């Protein structure tokens, strides 16, 4: 792998390194400018001369097109996506952006780039597919062009999408916990507004409010956790935090601080018990927005957790497990159980997907736990690290395919929504007759979410489970002889049991999705 190039902001290489973000920035500006282009004139003060300056006034035909902002946003996000992809294809350069005082700000490497891909891809899809969805009468009416929101309202929406992407990419790149937090807030604020965007409907604003309030509390807790960490370490640089943690990590201050920070991220991934607002938000928001919440936003939260847990509070080498192991394991178990159980009885498709998304958060947390449970010092160390890599790979893969399937499912719902259905499972009835392709797509998304081979959802789930099993098995390394299976490390056993349980339940969740299918067909 190539060496890390270290550059300072606004020096050579900076633009290349942050090109995707700059594209987003440009797109934002365009979104502000272009829809406002019009025959507006500027009266030179004191004269009657009016100079056309093309802003405001009667809009041009093209700039008054309500679909224009959607196009701009889609193209922006899409080109950012393609740019990242291009960078990948060209061989990745790892760039570290540091401040003048030598503080690490942003790190561009494969890991962050993959997350950027997830974010941009999800948002681009969401933006593109909500092109015809912002309607004056709210959800439910047919969509002649003049029924769409006017392009200013449209621009608001898509600007928020792009800022959201920007915030997420900051999270992906950040090397300083506070920078990460700012990115997180940028993305969060955008999503709060996006969720509440349908201010003409009761549920829209309600969901926005709940999501906002709970999210704010969670980020308040998170910020307080940051302040505690800062108080403890004197810096919020990941490198500094990790070093300090290795020395004096087991005192109350950093641990509680880490716990508080976990709350902030926990809300983003909608882990229990911070997930309560999520179903409400998904149900009230427009489906593409809900899709973004379930995929990109969740990936962002996971990224934060990974940074926090694996880099800052890395498992100790002495006793082979991380301090947060029990906590995260419990959270994972509760989350996947809760999500699956709740999804089982839900008859609102969006709520069901929301709960399923909670369950998926549980799997991912379980995978993270698995990495934490891995015995860093075991005799088969090389092998174990491979397992950790496998788990992380699986996690990433899972996030990637989640974008495809969960977002896909939400997008299907959004189509139904615009036709007036979508709030109850029964309203999906006869979809196969009306829209066979849509029905098939929905089915594929569903079984993939349920983890049925040969869909990619299976592979990701398999990889996650494999990682966990590997860790469980590896834990027995010393006692692999007879009776070993009974001497499974208690946490590992609990974990596998949880996972098996959760996994099984997730297939009961399939009951629901197939129930939906039945209606669909």
């Amino acid at each position: 792998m190539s060496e890390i190039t270290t550059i300072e902001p606004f020096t050579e290489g900076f633009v290349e390194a942050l090109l995707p973000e700059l594209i987003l920035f440009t797109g934002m500006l365009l979104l502000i400018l272009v829809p406002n282009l019009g025959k507006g004139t500027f009266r030179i003060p004191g004269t009657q001369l009016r100079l056309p300056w093309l802003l405001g006034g009667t809009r041009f035909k093209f700039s008054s097109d309500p679909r224009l902002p959607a196009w701009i946003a889609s193209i922006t996000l899409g080109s950012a996506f393609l740019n990242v992809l291009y960078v990948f294809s060209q061989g990745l350069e790892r760039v570290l952006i540091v401040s003048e005082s030598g503080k690490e700000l942003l790190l561009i490497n494969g890991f962050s780039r993959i997350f950027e891909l997830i974010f941009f891809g999800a948002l681009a899809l969401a933006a593109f597919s909500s092109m015809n969805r912002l309607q004056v009468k709210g959800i439910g009416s047919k969509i002649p062009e003049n029924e769409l929101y006017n392009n200013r309202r449209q621009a608001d929406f898509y600007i928020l999408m792009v800022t959201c992407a920007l915030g997420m990419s900051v999270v992906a790149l950040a090397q300083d916990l506070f920078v990460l937090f700012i990115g997180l807030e940028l993305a969060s604020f955008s999503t709060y507004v996006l969720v509440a965007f349908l201010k003409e409907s009761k549920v829209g604003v309600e969901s926005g409010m709940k999501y906002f309030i709970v999210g704010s509390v969670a980020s308040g807790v998170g910020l307080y956790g940051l302040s505690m960490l800062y108080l403890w370490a004197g810096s919020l640089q990941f490198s500094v935090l990790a070093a300090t943690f290795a020395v004096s990590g087991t005192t109350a201050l950093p641990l509680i601080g880490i716990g508080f920070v976990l709350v902030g991220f926990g809300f983003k991934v909608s882990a229990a018990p911070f997930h309560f607002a999520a179903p409400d938000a998904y149900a009230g928001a427009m489906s593409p927005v809900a899709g973004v919440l379930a995929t990109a936003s969740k990936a962002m939260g996971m990224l934060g957790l990974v940074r926090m847990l694996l880099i800052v509070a890395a498992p100790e080498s002495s006793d082979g497990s991380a301090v947060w192991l029990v906590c995260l394991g419990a959270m994972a178990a509760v989350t996947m159980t809760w999500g699956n159980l709740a999804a089982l009885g839900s008859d609102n498709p969006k709520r069901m997907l929301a709960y399923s998304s909670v369950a998926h958060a549980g799997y991912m947390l379980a995978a993270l736990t698995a990495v934490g449970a891995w015995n860093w010092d075991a005799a088969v160390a090389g092998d174990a690290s491979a397992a950790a890599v496998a788990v992380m790979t699986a996690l990433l893969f899972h996030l990637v395919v989640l974008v495809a399937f969960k977002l896909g499912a939400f997008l299907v719902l959004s189509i139904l929504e615009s036709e007036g259905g979508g709030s109850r499972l029964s309203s999906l009835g006869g979809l196969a007759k009306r829209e066979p392709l849509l029905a098939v797509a929905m089915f594929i998304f569903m079984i993939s979410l349920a983890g049925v081979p040969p869909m990619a959802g299976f592979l990701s789930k398999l990889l996650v489970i494999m990682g966990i099993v590997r860790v469980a098995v590896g834990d027995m390394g010393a006692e692999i002889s007879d009776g070993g299976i009974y001497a499974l490390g208690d946490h590992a056993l609990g974990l596998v049991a949880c996972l098996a349980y959760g996994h099984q339940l997730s297939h009961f969740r399939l009951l629901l999705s197939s129930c939906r299918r039945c209606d669909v067909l």
Partner: protein
Amino acid sequence: MDDWISMPLVGFPLVASIVLLAFVSNANESMRRRLANPIRMATLVFSLVLLVITTGMFFQYFGNVSWEGISFNNYEFLHRYSWMESLGIHWSVGMDALSFPMVWLTTFLLPVTIIATWNEKNGATYFPILLAMGGALIGVFVSLDLFMFYVFWELTLIPMFFLILVWGGADRKYASQKFFIYTFTASVVMLLGLITLYFFQDPVNPLDYAGSMTGRTFDIPTITQHALMENSNGNWYLGANIQKVLFAMLMLGFLVKLPAVPFHTWLPDAHVQAPTGGSMLLAGVMLKMGAYGMFRLPISLFPHALQYFQLALLIIGMVSLVWGAIVCLGQTNLKKMVAYSSVSHMGVILVGIATMQPMGWAAALFMMFAHGIISPMLFAVCGAFKHHYHSMEIGAMRGMAKHSPWLATSMMFAWMASLGLPLLAGFVAEIMMFIALWYFLAAEGWSVFWMVGPALVLAVTAAYYLWSMQRTIFEGGDETQPPSSLHGAPVPDIANPEKLAMLILAFFTIVFGVMPWIALDMMHDWTIQIFEGLILPVLGNFNGGA
């Protein structure tokens, strides 16, 4: 040697069906109706091509493979391609005398099913789904990679799910969900077992085809070879407890699929609601996946655990056998009765396995095969019954012999074959199971009262079949009017394609009943090979453990 399996047997039907389905999905309603016939012909031709290939393999025309004398853990037509190198996942296909009969059976049943359900509604989508089902089933049997095996294992659920859901009876939604969830849940346990097995491999010993990331492999021949080397008299591969746990996990998945009591309740629901074609493939091949899996994995890998669980297997088998048969006797729904009879017959397979005798295993293998020919005929008859009389109740239509002599004859034949009439395929397996069981009981000094179960079943099976025939084929005549659900329409006999399918099935039932050696010899050879290659070196002269 060219790869006769990957593309021709697995890829071709799957791809063809997807192409056909994609083609159809763009057509509108009337177009679909017009497409139904060409697509039906196309699928028939495709499936016949598959049959020709496998039959050619049997006659050593393709590949020049003799299906006898393949030593344990050797495979013919073995081909391995890279798939996911980092995890040790390969696209690995091959056949031995265990899988080949099942593959042939699948390719045989496919055209027969198409013919038997020639006039199924929505043919333009129905027939491609059948074809996909066939491809997936073949995939299960030819997979020599755990990952691939599991993928195909679950892939079979999807077309079957659709078959039940779209073409099923009144309660099809519930049935299809139950079918899917029940079997899927069980196979997830199996999956956990597979993954645990995967990770318990010792990466210190370099494995063939190991993954770069994990140092382990999903390759079945390699794992089997490894197990073979480490299993020895008294030495358990992976250690005793782990072997037991893994055995139990894998078996659970297979037992549900088989299905064995008490994991069987998905089957009657699925069968009753499934369309005829679905039932035929479900009973004919899909159930055998369970038994096939048992032989391929737990038995081949964990002979010690097999011995340890012998009593448990025997009990489960006996319970399935007896319970299934007695429940049959209490059924009033024709198809449900037939479904439970499958449970009973699958019990025979389990008992055969539990005997741990080459004869018992050969009986199990032959039972898989024979039941694979007989049960589709049973379900074809049930389907025709339902189709013509709009009812599944035994007694809804009496005096069929007069109204529908073809249907009555087919029913009589299928019923008789299923109750184990000599010189029809099922008998050989039953008598071999009996002999092996007795031999085992006598040799091990177990109580002879184990025989009571199978003996009872022989009588009970006859009782329920005869009882149902008395109320359908016999009686009635002119005095009994057709059921009111016909609304006074004349009672038709089965259509020509159905007749043809029945004749084909009946013919092969007789062929394999009179000349069982055609299939049995290679099965016998397989059991001898596994005994000489695995069981005897590991368990011979060793009576501990059990």
